[in-house]
């Protein structure tokens, strides 16, 4: 597998969340994901972008198009926020420390093919999502 193209954009405000959706949609359509898969990836990206802004205090999104035996899109959200103390709990549906429904992380995971999360309290959180064609 090789990364064909990579680009990093800021994720620090509400308008950035809208921009994330637009950029992910563009890339997903270029890579040739089906409309349903595009919609799933954009929705997952929207959830994670909001987490990055609201809980992570802002961060970045790295957008990658992948090639190799399979093509796909990988999204890496990184923030230097407070981190998540209990990842297992945070992934559970209905868990929220904010005002949301608590569907963000668990929901986003269900919408993609691969989901990796690393978080260190006091240092930040990194979430990588991949949707294959």
């Amino acid at each position: 597998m090789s990364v064909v193209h990579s680009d990093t954009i800021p994720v620090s405000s509400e308008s950035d969340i809208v921009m994330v959706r637009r950029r992910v949609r563009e890339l997903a359509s270029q890579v040739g994901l089906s409309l349903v898969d595009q919609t799933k990836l954009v929705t997952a990206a929207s959830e994670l972008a909001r987490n990055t802004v609201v809980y992570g205090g802002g961060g970045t999104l790295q957008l990658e198009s992948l090639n190799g035996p399979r093509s796909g899109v990988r999204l890496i959200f990184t923030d230097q926020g407070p981190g998540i103390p209990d990842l297992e709990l945070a992934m559970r549906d209905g868990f929220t420390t904010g005002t949301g429904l608590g569907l963000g992380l668990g929901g986003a995971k269900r919408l993609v093919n691969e989901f990796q999360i690393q978080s260190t309290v006091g240092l930040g959180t990194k979430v990588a999502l991949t949707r294959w064609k």
Partner: protein
Amino acid sequence: MEKIPILRMGEFLLVTIQVDMHDRLAMTLQEDLTNRISETGARGVLIDISSLEIVDSFIGRMLGNIAAMSRVLDAQTVVVGMQPAVAITLVELGMSLQGVRTALNVDAGMEVLRESVDGPRAM
């Protein structure tokens, strides 16, 4: 500030969401609609989301809130025109929009609202 227009048609309010929704815009719509229902005594609200390319948990929650608030103000809400890809994604995300009436299109949605106000039409 950017706003989503709310049209009045008889005893109903109509909203077509045509922009990419920011979170704040969604919050504003929620407040504006609640105020308009109370000012006008509207009995129904129809929200057309056929142009929305995604509904994430935030927008889903807003739709649920609007339905709940309008119910408390004695108005029925119908959400119409959801794209199939959006419906598939919403369910997988874990949102079933409980408490929100939906219809396939504006015509069907208006019928739902009329029935809720007048009772089922006599054949």
